[in-house]
């Protein structure tokens, strides 16, 4: 796997001048993804921020083939493209190796696109699905999704006089994909670029379906200064809110075990969307979030131990 320095010397396949916000980590994730995947890659993207900021006609930021179809079907669309490739390759009409990557935000993946994703993974297409998880429907104005964490203030779960943000924990999507028994599932974040690009390369090298859930902080929706995006991403990892791990043919590997596991409040306090949780009345919510982080982290380490044995 190439070092970050080597990756930086590769051709940048995402043109500058697109319309993303300053500090947008979904777009950082896309650049890193393309550096790892290379020119011979077809990218399909669900409706959402990434699609909107990169493809305003007559411009495109994509220097690889790219397709946007609709909100809920990026997995199905890319599975069709991959089937076409398989057919044309069998007929001798194409001979080079092409990577197929479907992309969706958390809304397009956890919620409206979950069925298409599940179907594509079950069918065993040779494709990688990357979810850029910024934990709400950011493109439509920061509404809660199945991927939004408990306690988050969003446009549809605002912190009010009697409610304190989203009341449910996020859907465990990465676990759901592990349960699909596909060859490769991972969690990553562009805050740790080499970890992410290594995972993209590994996923593309594997024959069969792969899934990577990438935590991508959103300066507008998470309410922190744009220059802090990378720190916020890393803090999610070092509080164990978003562990970096991979599951290869059922074997768990935790890629980063923080020397000092910070309390989750250290991550929460950086973000305006959790500000209300620091009122005395809401302290119990932070305790609940911490307990859930601890439970999941322990269970992750346990599974690594069980499956590595």
């Amino acid at each position, binding site marked *: 796997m190439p070092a970050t320095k080597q990756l930086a010397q590769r051709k940048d396949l995402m043109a500058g001048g697109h319309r993303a916000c300053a500090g947008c980590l979904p777009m950082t994730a896309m650049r890193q993804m393309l550096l790892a995947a290379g020119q011979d890659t077809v990218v399909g993207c669900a409706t959402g921020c990434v699609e909107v900021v990169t493809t305003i006609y007559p411009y495109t930021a994509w220097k*690889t083939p790219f397709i*946007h179809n609709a909100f809920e079907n990026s997995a199905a669309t890319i599975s*069709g493209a991959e*089937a076409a490739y398989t057919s044309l390759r069998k007929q001798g009409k194409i001979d080079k190796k092409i990577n197929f990557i479907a992309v969706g935000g958390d809304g397009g993946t956890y919620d409206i696109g979950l069925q*298409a994703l599940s179907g594509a993974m079950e069918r065993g297409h040779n494709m990688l699905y990357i979810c850029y998880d910024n934990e709400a429907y950011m493109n439509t104005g920061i509404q809660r999704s199945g991927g939004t964490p408990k306690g988050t203030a969003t446009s549809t779960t605002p912190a009010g006089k009697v409610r304190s943000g989203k009341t449910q924990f996020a859907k465990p999507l990465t676990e759901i994909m592990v349960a699909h028994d596909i060859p490769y599932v991972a969690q990553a974040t562009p805050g740790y670029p080499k970890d992410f690009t290594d995972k993209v390369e590994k996923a593309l090298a594997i024959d069969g379906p792969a899934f990577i859930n990438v935590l991508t902080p959103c300066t507008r929706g998470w309410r922190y200064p744009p220059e802090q995006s990378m720190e916020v991403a890393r803090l999610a990892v070092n509080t164990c809110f978003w562990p970096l791990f991979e599951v290869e043919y059922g074997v768990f590997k935790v890629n980063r075990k923080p020397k000092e596991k910070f309390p989750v409040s250290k991550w929460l306090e950086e973000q305006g969307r959790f500000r209300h949780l620091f009122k005395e009345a809401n302290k119990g919510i932070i305790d609940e979030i911490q307990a859930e982080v601890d439970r999941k982290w322990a269970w992750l380490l346990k599974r690594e131990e069980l499956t590595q044995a």
Partner: protein
Amino acid sequence: MARRLTLTGNDAAAEAMRQIDPDVVTCFPITPQTELMHKFAEFVADGEVKAEMVLVESEHSAMSAAVGAASAGARVMTATAANGLALMWEIVYIAASNRLPIVMPVVNRALSGPINIHCDHSDTMGCRDTGWIQLYSENAQEVYDNILQAVLIAENPHVLLPVMVTFDGFIISHTVEVMDALEDKEASDWVGEYEAKYSLMNTEDPVTFGPLDLQDYYFEHKRQQIDGMDNAAAVITSVGEAYGKLSGRTYGMIEAYMTDDADYIVVALGSTCGTAKVVVDEMRTEGKRVGLLKIRSFRPFPHAEIIAALASAKAVAVLDRSVSFGAPGGPVHKEILAALSGTGHTTSIVNYLYGLGGRDISLNHIRSVFEELETVAGKTIPADEVRFIGLRG
């Protein structure tokens, strides 16, 4: 050299698909389309076709995967009916807007609710404005012939639009008929190789498909799509003529059956046209000047052909097998009135609603319609007057 076969409509569609041998076929089961896909799956299982069959988890994904495959330069087919078509509706629009020449047999079935698996045209009439070309079939022979022609129509560079080939659920899909098929070589030469102008597979000169298209370009792109649909009319006709030279069966936008001197004409689509032809034949032996106007291409709508065919009739019955709730008459009726508007015609036009949810239409029903036409000739019929065939109460 024709091969005489005895097939159901579904098997006739599968036979056409076997001979076309698309690169990719996507599919999700729904009655009464299932046997079409069973048959095609057998061809795949026996290695008789090269197609990659993508057995998706919903019709929405069937059309989504078809869009992905067609954008990757593949010749693509899928098939559906009723609620399946309704579920894929969003992507049906996108397939046409992205100018992807997908061919899709649709086995006409009533839309829920209440749930019903039998024939009416509510499914395909409901998506008449999606930008797909729509060819309606009278019998298994036409199902087969229309699918083979649809490939050339869709892929014509002046058209580049997807085509629905519709046929009536159970009435055509599940009944066995004698029909003629082309030899395999004739069929494969007819459809030829598909070369997409743009493809996702071209990584050296990459293209972005499906971009965000706002106030400054969307309208122009829609105009291009309108032009493509307008161009389709001439292409449907020329492909129908060329197919006639190959098979002996020539097709046009409409079929005017004994309309030249007819005083009374029934307008219909699909299998009902076969029933109506029998009635026309019977009544002609009785000296009645009756005829049938069959609309084969509902999109694009054959205005000029219809004006010519109906010009000298005293009274016309337009048979609709779907409802346009709250509108004056069914969708076919409205289109006919619009076509004749401004032509100075004096024909009395009556709208009949029939056959919803698979309600049978018999020879006697159609004879009664012709007899009613004799009584309305010369009268002005209100545009919102709808008569019902075979309805109790």
